[in-house]
């Protein structure tokens, strides 16, 4: 319990922290997120998880009640009375068969493959789950008392009579449905025979019948012995005589002969009693799979085990590696597991399961459970039994997060608290964590916790009664040892006491009693009585209810733990705080999950085919492909993820997210380079570490590193050295720049230069306002005054999106604003002003509006010109170098280049050229806008988005809102861009020349003087424009 408290508190404080940050704004998504992640982490077992949460459909409940596979639905049900006539016992005295007159009333259900009966009120009186393919013949019986009566004959001769109770129409409908299903099961009948050959009960009875026949006819027939568990070769654990194995066997034989065997067995009170006293060795495996329902799974999936085994024969996986470590460490004291025969079987079952369910893969404790199963079961039986365990009986126990284990420990603790409050308080007071003690019991169904013979007795009941058995036994262990435990004050001692108890289960429970029969009761017998009598109140529903109750807390705890761990194990990035990392983590998993969710939905849409085999094959391979990367993202997911952080990705751009449309947008090339750059191991998927490392480079504000990184995207890096890039790649780079700078070109974002200009403008406006104020004060025009104040309130309210600043308080926040204009926060949101100004009709506002528009125009122009002069300069400073081109160009690129060159005189193919990193740097540094873009605008905008996304409203709602309003303002501007670009470019180039004083002698002999250059510049940029339009 304290462990969970810790987790809970941790989760709680996280949520509190979240609330604090939002200054009272509850983020309703926050709490759910935790579950999303936990669900994601727990992988495919989320289906198990859903079982508690989801409101079950009628079919779900039906399947759950009768342990049916997912392909079964409830087709019809009806009240009925059942009677059965047994075949006469072939040997021994012909006992009178079960009285034909005894009728059991209850309910009859029909599904695709089964006819199921369960007696009313007390289900244990009589029930069966009859596969339709075992029915040999159905006849209508003459009956007066009932509307309808059928006689159903089973393949082995047993006959059930069914008398329907209800309206004639209901009976008719049921019978029609039954007829239909029988018909569609006809083709499956041929699969029954090989299946029956794997069952010992079938073999046993056939042998007896054969003996009977042989004594009359002298025709000796042999029947193949079904594959048995390892116990048949290596001896079953325990002393068969002491276990009274023979008498148990006799009793079972009798039962099987009168009540049908294996698939067709009718469960009556004796059936349960016989299981309670312990199963005989030879029938144990079969009865385990029968009572757990895995026999039906095996029946409908015959051959699957071998198929998976063959298909993955020489494959390797991480799970296999883990399995290998434990093969020699599974019940090593049992002789079979010191032999290759035993080890091989164990290896195959565990491995096949890891292929079948890669989300679970392999979990320690599975080796012990399967090793136990294999003593009594064939490989295939054990395999399907394991399936049933993981999916149904021990849901989520062996999952990657082991959430099922943690959950049931919590459930167990709450049951202890409820049933043994004194002990609970004592343990609680002494800070003893019960789960430390009980966890292995649950995880390996008590195998390994107590001597095998006893553990198997519990397993017998567990398969019959389900998960509640584990709780009942665990509670009984505590109850029996309660007094001793009350004297103990640390969890180590609790373990010791109980360990000792388990080792002495064969001793007398009452050694000092004068009563001999009391003395002869063993501790184990006592345990059974306490577990199933005293704790008989522990029901399946109770467990389900408690699971649902505690589930959220557990998932929350797991999520917190996983996140903390994963973030801690990341190689620490340079530019992120742990808080920012935590946001990256959330966004990463949100993206991965949403993709997965999408995949899942697509999967669901695939119509269910009749050919289940084929279907399964498909879903299996899907499962492998998606789950192998269940915590990594593919390219498209990466774009989605990035779009939440990068203003330059338009989430609405279909070309980015639809593979079919890809390839014709500016961003494609850049984004794909980015993805592959992030993907350092070249797996085609990005891990959290990849993404963090990559983003770390993107938000780098060190100018040179930032430039290097951009260059790195385009330059093939060989042996740690960046190569030069050729002409074609230079063009690609300019495309990349165009793509990246889009938000600034389109005025959605403001860079520092524009911010400073706006600051100036604000300053001016402020002065003018105060002038006006004083003027209006003089005039006492209250209406106008209000108007203006009101207007400015709006203006500044949206200004940084957080606090309302009146005109008066503006001055005091001014300094903060100036500093933040360098930092990214207010960038972009400024533009809102333009909008509010448009609505205002004050004279000065209109003027300012024009000024603001001008600033935005200028910024847009600056960026366009920056990109065009980038190309120009690259070509200017590029060195002609033949070999580089040969190295860098693949055939297809050459074609492309050819094409481009034909259209562009500037790109004379006879002069191949390339630039290296140094030149590239120089080119970027030559342009103030680009320099600033790399050192500030780009990295800071991303960091800002990261920080903003903590506050849901700011990060998500606002930008889109003002983006749309801004669209109108800039529509004209953008189409006009080129003209403006040329204009401004000239100006800026002049300016740049003055300030930077770049020597024109460096590598260009074209330009004699300034006048000439201007002409050339215009010329080149004209060509560049063509180029840009072409691309």
């Amino acid at each position: 319990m304290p462990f969970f408290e810790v987790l809970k508190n941790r989760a709680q404080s996280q949520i509190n922290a979240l609330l604090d940050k939002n200054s009272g704004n509850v983020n309703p998504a926050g709490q759910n997120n935790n579950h999303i992640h936990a669900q994601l982490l727990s992988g495919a077992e989320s289906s198990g998880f859903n079982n508690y949460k989801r409101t079950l459909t009628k079919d779900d409940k039906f399947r759950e009640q009768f342990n049916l596979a997912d392909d079964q639905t409830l087709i019809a049900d009806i009240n009925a009375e059942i009677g059965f006539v047994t075949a006469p016992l072939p040997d021994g005295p012909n006992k009178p068969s079960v009285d034909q007159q005894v009728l059991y009333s209850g309910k009859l259900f029909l599904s695709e493959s089964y006819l199921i009966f369960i007696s009313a009120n007390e289900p244990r009186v009589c029930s069966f789950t009859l596969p339709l393919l075992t029915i040999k013949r159905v006849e209508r019986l003459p009956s007066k008392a009932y509307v309808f009566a059928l006689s159903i004959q089973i393949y082995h001769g047993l006959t059930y009579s069914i008398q329907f109770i209800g309206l004639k129409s209901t009976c008719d409908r049921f019978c029609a449905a039954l007829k239909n299903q029988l018909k569609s099961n006809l083709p499956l009948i041929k699969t029954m025979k090989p299946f029956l050959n794997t069952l010992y009960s079938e073999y046993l009875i056939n042998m007896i019948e054969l003996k009977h026949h042989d004594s009359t006819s002298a025709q000796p027939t042999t029947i193949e012995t079904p594959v048995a568990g390892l116990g048949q070769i290596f001896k079953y654990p325990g002393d068969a005589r002491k276990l009274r194995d023979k008498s148990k066997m006799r009793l079972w034989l009798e039962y099987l002969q009168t009540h049908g065997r294996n698939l067709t067995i009718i469960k009556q009170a004796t059936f349960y009693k016989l299981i309670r006293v312990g199963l005989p060795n030879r029938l144990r495996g079969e009865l385990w799979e029968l009572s757990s329902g895995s026999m039906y799974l095996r029946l409908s999936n015959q051959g699957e085990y071998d198929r998976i085994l063959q298909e993955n024969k020489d494959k390797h996986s991480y799970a296999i590696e883990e399995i290998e470590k434990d093969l020699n460490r599974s019940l090593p004291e049992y002789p079979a597991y010191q032999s290759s025969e035993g080890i091989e079987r164990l290896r195959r079952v565990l491995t096949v399961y890891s292929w079948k369910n890669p989300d679970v893969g392999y979990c320690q404790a599975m080796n012990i459970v399967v090793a136990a199963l294999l003593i009594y079961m064939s490989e295939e039986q054990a395999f399907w039994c394991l399936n049933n365990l993981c999916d149904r009986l021990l849901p989520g126990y062996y999952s990657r997060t082991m959430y099922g284990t943690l959950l049931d420990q919590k459930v167990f603790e709450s049951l202890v608290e409820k049933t043994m409050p004194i002990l609970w308080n004592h343990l609680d007071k002494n800070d003893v964590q019960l789960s430390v003690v009980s966890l292995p019991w649950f995880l390996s169904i008590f195998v390994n916790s107590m001597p095998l013979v006893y553990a198997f007795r519990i397993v017998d009941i567990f398969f019959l009664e389900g998960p509640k058995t584990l709780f009942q036994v665990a509670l009984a262990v505590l109850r029996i040892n309660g007094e001793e435990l009350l004297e103990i004050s640390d969890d180590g001692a609790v373990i010791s006491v109980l360990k000792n108890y388990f080792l002495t289960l064969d001793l007398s429970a009452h050694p000092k009693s004068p009563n001999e029969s009391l003395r002869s009761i063993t501790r184990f017998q006592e345990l059974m009585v306490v577990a199933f009598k005293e704790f008989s109140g522990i029901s399946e529903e109770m467990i389900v209810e408690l699971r649902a109750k505690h589930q959220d807390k557990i998932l929350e705890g797991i999520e917190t733990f996983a996140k903390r761990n994963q973030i801690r194990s990341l190689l620490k990035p340079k530019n992120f705080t742990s808080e920012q990392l935590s946001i990256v983590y959330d966004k990463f998993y949100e993206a991965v999950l949403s993709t997965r969710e999408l995949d899942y939905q697509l999967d669901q849409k695939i119509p269910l085919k009749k050919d289940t085999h084929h279907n399964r094959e498909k879903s299996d391979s899907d499962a492998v492909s998606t789950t192998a990367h269940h915590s990594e993202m593919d390219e498209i997911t990466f774009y989605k993820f990035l779009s939440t952080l990068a203003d330059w990705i338009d989430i609405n751009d279909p070309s980015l997210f639809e593979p079919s449309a890809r390839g014709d947008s500016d961003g494609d090339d850049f984004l794909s380079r980015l993805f592959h750059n992030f993907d350092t191991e070249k797996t085609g998927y990005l891990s959290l570490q990849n993404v963090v490392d990559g983003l770390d480079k993107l938000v780098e504000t060190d100018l040179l590193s930032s430039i290097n990184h951009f260059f790195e995207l385009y330059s093939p890096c060989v042996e740690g050295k960046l190569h030069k890039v050729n002409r074609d790649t230079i063009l690609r780079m300019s495309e990349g720049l165009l793509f990246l700078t889009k938000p600034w070109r389109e005025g959605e974002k403001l860079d520092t230069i524009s911010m400073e200009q706006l600051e100036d403008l604000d300053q001016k406006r402020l002065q003018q306002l105060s002038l006006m104020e004083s003027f209006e004060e003089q005039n006492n025009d209250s209406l106008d005054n209000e108007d203006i104040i009101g207007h400015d309130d709006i203006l500044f309210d949206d200004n940084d999106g957080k606090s309302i600043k009146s005109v008066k308080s503006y001055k005091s926040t001014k300094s903060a604003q100036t500093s933040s204009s360098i930092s990214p926060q207010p960038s972009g949101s400024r533009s809102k002003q333009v909008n509010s100004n448009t609505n205002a009709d004050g004279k000065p506002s209109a003027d300012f509006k024009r000024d603001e528009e001008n600033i935005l125009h200028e910024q847009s122009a600056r960026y366009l010109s920056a990109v065009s002069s980038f190309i120009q300069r690259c070509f200017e400073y590029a060195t002609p170098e033949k070999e580089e081109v040969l190295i860098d160009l693949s055939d297809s690129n050459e074609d492309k280049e050819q094409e481009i060159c034909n259209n562009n005189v500037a790109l004379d193919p006879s002069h191949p050229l390339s630039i290296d990193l140094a030149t590239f740097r120089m080119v970027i540094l030559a342009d103030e806008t680009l320099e600033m873009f790399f050192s500030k605008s780009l990295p800071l905008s991303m960091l800002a988005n990261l920080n903003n996304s903590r506050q849901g409203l700011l990060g998500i709602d606002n930008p889109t809102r003002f983006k749309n309003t801004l669209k109108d303002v800039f529509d004209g501007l953008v189409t006009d861009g080129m003209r403006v670009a040329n204009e401004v470019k000239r100006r800026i180039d002049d300016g740049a020349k003055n300030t930077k004083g770049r020597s024109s002698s460096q590598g260009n002999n074209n330009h004699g003087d300034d006048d000439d250059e201007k002409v050339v510049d215009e010329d080149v940029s004209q060509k560049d424009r063509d180029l840009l339009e072409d691309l």
Partner: protein
Amino acid sequence: MDSQSTAPRPTTSVKLVLLGEAAVGKSSLVLRFVSNEFQENKEPTIGAAFLTQKCSLANKTIKFEIWDTAGQERFASLAPMYYRNAQSALVVYDITKPNSFIKARHWVNELKAQASPGIIIALVGNKLDLVEEDTNNTSSSNDADHEDDETEHSDNVEDTTNAITEDASDSDSDVETQSARCVALQEGEKLAAEEGLLFFETSAKTGLNVRDVFLAIANKIPDEASKRRGNGLLAGSGHNGDSDANGLPNHDGRISLDASNANGTGACAC
């Protein structure tokens, strides 16, 4: 170090937790320490196992309450349950399994971040017997393998990490137990030095150095801790890092093994 001294020495209970990748030999180390046995095929630990062992020092007796945890990755979320309130920890790796060393690094980080402050951590590279063939010059033969090692005296952490990762991917391909050493003695030493850990290379199979690990920890437990455990007393003990305070091997695990292996049993009143 007389085990049967007449004066009753104060007994200090010390909670010790073992962490490390699956099958590195955590349970085997405990078994060797507690009952001086070795089992070739030790079952994996499910959840955790608990054992106690007393250890007599000159002036006190230490009673180790040992929590031996499950090593598989997915059991990691249970680990906080076990290292809660622990005063000491063994972080174990297998010197023939590079991945296990990476895991060890993670465990050290986790303990430093989440366990009680001042927890005494010993880094243990186990299965030394598997590389015992080249006993006499483990370190020199190692230098031959990693030529960089000698020159690399600066703490260039990145390089080491890279080297390990590469090794890891290499060994992934061949599953079968490879008896070659994959984690250099120096790598363990370096991590221990960086993080202020005790460091040993051991063999649970031969018993080599096993006792020394526990003794070293016992010696670092401050006396005051005997009054009450787990209430932060350890945080103040300035012992961290100076592990040879008790003349115990920190520099080179091999030195100690000669000294203490022969009569190592005398130190513990088991």
